[in-house]
C-alpha cells in the first residue's frame, strides 16, 4: 500500500499535545466532580441541610442485613436531612480497584430523587457518571428490586462499577426504610 507523500512526515509528527490541551481545555475538575456542598445543591437546590447522627444498633444491623440481603459493614453513614424532610446520603463503594464516592437524594415520600457520582478514579469505566445511567434510579423506592440487569441496566465494560453502585443504593434505601423513615 502506498501512503501519499502529503500524509507523511511533518504535520502529524509535530502535532503539539500541549497546544491541543491549551486549545480545548477549560477550568474544571478531575477525579472529584462534586464536593459535598455541590452535590447537595445539585440534588436539593436551595435547601438547608442538617446533619443526622446515626449509629446503627446491632439489632438494626441485623434487620438491615435481612432486608438488604448483604452484610452491613459500616455502622455509620453520612446523612443529612433537608428542611423539607428529604434525605441526602453519601456513600462509598469500590469500582474495580478504586473507590467511587456517590450521593443519593431521597424525597420526603421515600422515592429516589437523584444519584450523583462525586468521585470516580478508575482509568476506564466512568460511564456510570453519565446521566443516562444514573437516571434509572429516579423514582425507585426501598420496595424496588434495585438489581443490576433487572430494573437497573448494566454498562458493558463497567460492570463492577455498575453493580457496586447499584448495591450501594439498595443498601441506602434499605437503611432509609428501616431507620430514617418516620
Amino acid at each position, binding site marked *: 500500500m502506498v501512503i501519499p507523500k502529503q500524509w507523511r*512526515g511533518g504535520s502529524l*509528527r509535530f502535532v503539539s499535545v500541549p497546544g491541543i490541551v491549551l486549545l480545548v*481545555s*477549560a477550568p474544571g475538575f478531575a477525579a472529584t466532580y462534586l464536593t459535598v456542598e455541590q452535590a447537595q445543591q445539585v440534588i436539593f437546590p436551595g435547601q438547608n441541610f442538617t446533619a443526622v447522627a446515626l449509629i446503627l444498633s446491632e439489632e438494626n444491623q441485623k434487620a438491615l442485613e435481612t432486608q438488604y440481603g448483604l452484610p452491613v459493614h459500616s455502622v455509620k453513614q453520612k446523612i443529612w436531612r433537608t428542611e423539607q424532610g428529604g434525605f441526602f446520603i453519601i456513600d462509598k463503594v469500590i469500582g474495580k*480497584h478504586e473507590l467511587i464516592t456517590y450521593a443519593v437524594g431521597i424525597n420526603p415520600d421515600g422515592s429516589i430523587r437523584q444519584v450523583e457520582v462525586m468521585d470516580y478514579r478508575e482509568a476506564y469505566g466512568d460511564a456510570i457518571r453519565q446521566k443516562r445511567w444514573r437516571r434509572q434510579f429516579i423514582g425507585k423506592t426501598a420496595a424496588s428490586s434495585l438489581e443490576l440487569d433487572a430494573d437497573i441496566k448494566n454498562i458493558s465494560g463497567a460492570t463492577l462499577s455498575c453493580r457496586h453502585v447499584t448495591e450501594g443504593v439498595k443498601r441506602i434505601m434499605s437503611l432509609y426504610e428501616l431507620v430514617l423513615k418516620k
Partner: protein
Amino acid sequence: MSRVSLFAGICFITVFFSLPAGAETIEDIKATMEEMKRDYETRIKGLEERIETLSGQQQENSAKIEDIATQHEAQAAAMEQKIDAKTLDVEYVGRGNAPVGKGGLVIGNPFGFGNVSVGGYADVEYGDFEKTNSTFNQHRWIINIGAFPHERLRFTSELEIEYGGPNVPNADGEIKVEQAYMDFLINDAVNVRAGALLVPFGRYNLYHDSDLQNLTERPIVARDVIPTTWTEAGAGIFGGFNPVLGSYEDLNLNYELYMVNGLDTGFSDTGLSGARASLKTDNNDDKAVVGRVAASPWLNQEVGVSGYWGEYDTAGHAIAGVGVDSLVTIGPLEWINEYAYFGVEQGSSDVANFFQGAYSQLNYDFWFKCLDNSFLGRGFKDPKMTLVGRYDWGLISDDSDASRGNNKEDRWTLGFNYRPVDNFVYKLEYQWNQTSNEALERGDNNGFLTSMAIGF
C-alpha cells in the same frame, strides 16, 4: 376546695379555743375568720400561680435542653463524619466483604490524600487440539497497581507475568509492563496521559482482561492484526463529551489520541505482533499517531473508529491502520463486531503489505432459577451463564517467504460461560479452524479450550 375548707376548719378551732373571756361577739369572730380565709386563699392562689409559672419554665427549659442535646448530637455526627473521612483514607480495605463492596485492595495514605490500589487478574487454561498435545497452561497473572498522589494526578499500571515468567524451566514465560502511565487530569473533555500506554486501537485491546472476556482465545484480529495487548511508550490526550441536542441528552463521545514510538520492522506475514515497539528506544526518528473516537448514542450501544499512522523503518516507509468496532445490546443479548486493516508501504517486496481481520461475537446471558439452590447458585447473589458464538477471520498478505500466497484463517467458536460473580468465570469452548497457506493461529486444527479467570 378541700384544702381551703380544712385550713378554715383548723383556723376556726384554733381561734375558738383561744378566745379570751369577754372577747368579741360571734359576728366579730366570723368576720375575722372570713378575713383570714380570704388572706389564705389569696396566698394559696399565689402559690398555685407560682407553681404553674415554674412548671412552664421547667417545660421551656426541657425543650431548650433537648434542642441543645440535638445540636450537640448533630455536631458530634458531623465530627464523626469528618473523622470517618480521615480514617477511611488510612483504612486498609480488604477485598470480598470490604465496607465498600467487592473489589481490589485500597491502601490509604496516612499523610493525606492519595490512595494506592492493588488488583489484578489471573487465568489458567486447558487446550486439546488436533495434531497437538493437550496441555494445561497458566497463561497470565496480571498485577494492577494504581495510585492517586493528588486528586488530579493518577497512576495506572499493569504488570504481566505470562507462563510463570522467564525463569521457569524452558524459559518460555515472560514478565512485562503492559501499562504504566500517569494522567494529569484537567476536565472531562481533555486530560493528559503519558507512559507505557494501552494503545487505543479497537475495542478488544482496551477491554482485554481475561475475566472480562467470554472466550478463552482472543480473536485472530486481536492477535495478528491489532497486536493485543498492544503497549507503546508515548503521550497524548483523552477525554469525553456529552453534547445535549435539544431534549436528547444521551449522546456520549469519548476519544484517546496519542503519539507513540510506533510499530517497527518486526512484522511478518503471520502477524503484526512482532512489530510492537521497544519501550526504551524508537527505531527511527518518526513518531506514530494513534487514536480512537467512540460514539455512544444510547446506553450500551457504541461505535468506535480507530486510526494509526507512523513510519516503521528508517527509510520513511509507513504503516497506516484503520479500525471500526461496534457494540449493540438488546436485553441479555450483546453483539460485538470489530474490523481492522493495516496497510504497509513496502520498501521491498519481501514484506507483507497488508493485515486485516474481523470478528463478530454474540453473547447471550441467562440463568435458570432452579439452579439457585444447587452448587452453582448457592451463596451467590447474581450468578449467570452465557452462551457465546464468534466468527473470526484474518487475512495477511504474503511476504515472499517459502510459502506462497496470502495467509488466511477462519474460525468458528461456540462457547459456554458460568459466572458465579462478575469477576470469576469458567469458560468452555470449541473451535473449528480453517486456514490457507501459513497458519496464523491454529491452522486447520479443531479443538476445545477450557479456562478459569479471576479478577480482583
